């Protein structure tokens, strides 16, 4: 489970006419991860299928735009798989262009309704303003013999410029209201030659005229408001009618749109493979990565479905291209949430140990030991189960964390902070603090040793021998660390560090220093400084990293101490107060301490674990595939 799935590099040589079929077949196998590097053969420099790609993109774009207006399922059942001929794609593109022309008219009509509604709101605001004025604004409704009036709105930030512009046409601009980004203005000036200049400026400024209510002079704003409300109701009616019309249109064209979606899904693999495909004349090549066990099935399928001759070659990845090989992610649904957390750090490089199973095990171990309580663990597990639909794949993570907490709760004999109800199957942390600290330290040593071993393994796999021996957390580092632990144990037991551990520590540090010295290209003074600091950092780093694991014990003690505090407070209350304090105290512990413990465990995993052995520089296996509605093992494809 820790080892990656072996991969093969495959190269497929086909005749250009068979490219759409080959792409479709590769997508159906769901085992082909495209390799976009240019081919080694200089002759294969052409990029075929450009028109096909353009047609596809245009058609897909149109369908996406239509799908924003009416429902077009993203992954319909594809039904009969067939190769999409360029002419078929072009026909779909033309059909979608017509549909989009029709659909965009609906869109435009909805926008016009929005605009009209906005205008009514502006009119209502204007009415509110006009009603408070003590002049007959009805006179502004029409131009007089000598005066020219404009009442309307424009974007607020255009007001200053328009003010200058109207001034040049001998007009005045008065802003009487601001609403959001819009300003309401009145422009007034003499009629004459310069009046004509204004209209184009007003257009450029985004000016929208607001009709002044006819009967404003009658001072009956309530009636006017009713009229606007009626108009608003009319617009709502129009919106509804337009919606009905759109639904009818949708029903009429649903079949055609669905067929277009299917065609595009079938054409997609060829387009996706586009950067991978290179050709010379009628000969085309495409390359990719395939899991070794899937190669025979791929060859068999191509044999069955390609009509023209082809050549498929498969080989092991070369040493220099290992960084390009994709890694197939862990498939287990129980490990999936942990894989997501690992992914936050990076994807394992091909050949590297996949840390997910180890991560899952140590995560549960540390979380449970730091937050061991039967009751609180059961609450976490119960909540994860209850909200499993909302939590997606993370509900299993919550469930396992809760169960781990329950398990350690039984070991510690703790339920909702009470330590007298359940008999401890092992020990209560608060009563054996030294033991807990010793165990945490031992766990830390084991964790670091395993991390170093994995780091050594990962380098050996890629034949990085010097890195495995002398690199960070390599063999010499491990010898140093084990000698340090050995000496430390001696110091704690007999009082002396011991000769052999001392010699091992000195020898390993000397080896590291010599290695660093030889690999450093710098003046002597700088070399001395760097080697001294690096050596010191090695010693300090391992000691502090080991001590870092004391937090595992510290949090288990902290958990018990917090529970005692809550129960002490509860003891001071009456019967009802006791229950409320215990409940609130447990909620507090669950939320606050639960969160902190989670962060601490992640920190130990990422910093003390991953930083030693996991580069995270790989990339995920992402095979070419058809839409989700496509049959995975369909009947042999036929040409349309």
């Amino acid at each position: 489970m820790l080892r990656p799935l072996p991969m093969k590099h495959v190269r497929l040589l086909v005749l250009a006419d068979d490219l759409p079929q080959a792409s479709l077949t590769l997508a159906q196998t769901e085992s082909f991860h495209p390799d976009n590097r240019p081919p080694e053969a200089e002759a294969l420099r052409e990029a075929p299928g450009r028109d096909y790609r353009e047609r596809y993109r245009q058609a897909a774009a149109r369908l996406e735009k239509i799908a924003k207006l009416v429902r077009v399922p993203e992954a319909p059942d594809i039904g009969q798989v067939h190769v999409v001929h360029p002419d078929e794609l072009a026909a779909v593109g033309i059909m979608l262009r017509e549909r989009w022309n029709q659909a965009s008219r609906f869109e435009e009509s909805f926008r016009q309704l929005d605009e009209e509604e906005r205008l009514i709101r502006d009119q209502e605001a204007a009415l509110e303003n006009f009603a408070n004025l003590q002049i007959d604004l009805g006179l502004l409704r029409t131009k007089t013999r000598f005066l020219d009036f404009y009442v309307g709105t424009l974007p607020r930030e255009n007001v200053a410029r328009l003010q200058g512009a109207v001034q040049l046409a001998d007009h005045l601009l008065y802003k009487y209201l601001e609403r959001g980004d819009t300003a309401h203005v009145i422009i007034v000036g003499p009629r004459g030659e310069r009046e004509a200049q204004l209209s184009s400026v007003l257009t450029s400024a985004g000016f929208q005229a607001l009709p002044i209510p006819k009967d404003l002079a009658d001072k009956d704003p309530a009636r006017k408001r009713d009229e606007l409300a009626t108009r608003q109701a009319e617009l709502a009616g129009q919106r509804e009618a337009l919606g009905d019309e759109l639904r009818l249109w949708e029903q009429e064209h649903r079949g055609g749109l669905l067929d277009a979606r299917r065609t595009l899904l079938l054409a997609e693999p060829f387009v996706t493979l586009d950067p991978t495909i290179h050709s010379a004349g009628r000969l085309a090549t495409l390359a990719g990565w395939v899991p070794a066990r899937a190669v025979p099935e791929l060859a068999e399928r191509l044999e069955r479905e390609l009509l023209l001759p082809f050549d498929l070659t498969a080989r092991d990845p070369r040493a220099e291209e290992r960084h390009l090989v994709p890694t197939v992610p862990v498939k287990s649904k129980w490990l999936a949430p942990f894989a997501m957390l690992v992914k936050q750090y990076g994807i394992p490089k091909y050949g590297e140990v996949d840390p997910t199973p180890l991560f899952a095990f140590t995560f549960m171990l540390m979380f449970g030991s730091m937050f061991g309580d039967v009751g609180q663990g059961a609450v976490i597990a119960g909540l994860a189960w209850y909200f499993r639909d909302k939590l997606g794949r993370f509900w299993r993570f919550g469930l396992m964390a809760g169960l781990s907490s329950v398990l350690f709760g039984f070991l510690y004999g703790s339920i909702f902070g009470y330590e007298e109800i359940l008999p401890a199957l092992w020990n209560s942390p608060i009563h054996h603090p030294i033991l807990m600290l010793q165990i945490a330290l031992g766990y830390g040593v084991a964790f670091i040793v395993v991390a170093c071993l994995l780091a050594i393994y990962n380098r050996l796999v890629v034949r990085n021998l010097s890195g495995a021996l002398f690199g960070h957390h390599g063999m010499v580092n491990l010898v140093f660390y084990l000698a340090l632990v050995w000496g430390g144990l001696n110091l704690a037991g007999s009082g002396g560090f011991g000769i052999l551990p001392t010699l091992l520590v000195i020898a390993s540090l000397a080896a590291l220093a010599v290695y660093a010295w030889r690999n450093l290209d710098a003046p002597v003074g700088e070399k001395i400084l760097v080697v001294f600091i690096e050596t010191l950092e090695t010693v300090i780093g391992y000691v502090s990293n080991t001590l870092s694991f004391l937090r595992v014990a510290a949090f288990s003690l902290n958990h018990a101490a917090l529970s005692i505090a809550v129960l002490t407070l509860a003891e001071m209350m009456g019967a009802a107060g006791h229950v409320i304090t215990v409940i609130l105290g447990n909620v507090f512990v669950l939320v606050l301490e639960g969160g902190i413990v989670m962060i601490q465990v992640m920190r130990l995993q990422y910093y003390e674990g991953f930083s030693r052995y996991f580069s995270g520089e790989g990339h995920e296996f992402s095979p070419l595939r058809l839409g989700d509605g496509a049959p995975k093992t369909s009947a042999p494809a036929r040409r349309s």
Partner: protein
Amino acid sequence: MTASAQSYLNTRVSAMATALLHADAAPELCRLTLPEIAERYGLNALLDEQITPRGRARAAEQALLQRLLTDLAVLVRPMDSDGRGLLLAWARKYALFNLKTLIRGKLHGLDQSEIRENLFDLPERVRLPHQELYRAENVLELLRVLERGPLRIIARQARESYEQRRDPFVLESAVDQRYYAELTRQSLQFRGEEAQPVQQLLGAILDCTNLIWLLRFRFSFGLSPSETFYQLVPSKRLLHRTRLLELVNLESTEQVLEALPEPLDRLLAGTTNLIDAQGRANEHLLAECRRTLARGRSGVSRALAYLVLREQDLRLLSMVVQGRLIGLTQEQIDIAANLSAPPTAPDSPLGMAAAA
């Protein structure tokens, strides 16, 4: 910006400024052959016979722009949000070039690949949401898409104007006007010691732009004073609001040139055509940038001055490349580089119209 960031930025700008062309290096540059340009500036695509001349010119232009954008990325790194905002707003002109290309492409019914070939490849924080814009089937749809992004106000205004007048000029002038208005807005965000030098330099940029726009709109396109004024962006320096109101109301180029404030009146005295006026105004701006670069203390204004000068150098280089690729004579290249005057300078105002 902290004192250390300011020092770092100033040092960076000074180091980068050593690569700028000297004011008198243009004639030498204009005489370089294509192989010499390719070797000196690492533009190997220029010599690739497999690519069409247009493709080579395009590749060179893109490579040169990339250098400018790399410099920009280095300069904005130590800046605070105000400085970064100003420089990115300045660089967004290339996104607006792309926008204009898209608009023109849609207007003339070009296919997507043809439009794409003429677009600049820009970094994430400068570019427009291209993919969505490509998908638009016509100008109005394109502007509708833009209305959903950061250019919302420009797009809405442009669309409303376009719906009423169906004139691409309205669109493009709205885009340009908003670009400079945004630069002004960004410059007004500065407080403290940075504010004055930044606003001074931006004022010089706006003065240069306003002057050319004023002459072009008013006398080449024949727009009314109101329409002309509306397209301008008053600066905080020479061509401020009141002065622009006076200038646009004048009736001839000569009257405008006479009424210009010091030192623009002196610089533009005797100008007979718009190209000449543009060249002189541009020289004035470049001189201002060189002054800021040499004597300024504000990191942001020096960085902006550097970018303006660098852009000018790269534009000159790009112009020589294009001239060589399409087979222009040395004389024609010199005229294009403003190194010599055209053989017969047209008279004003016809010259202005011809130049526009």
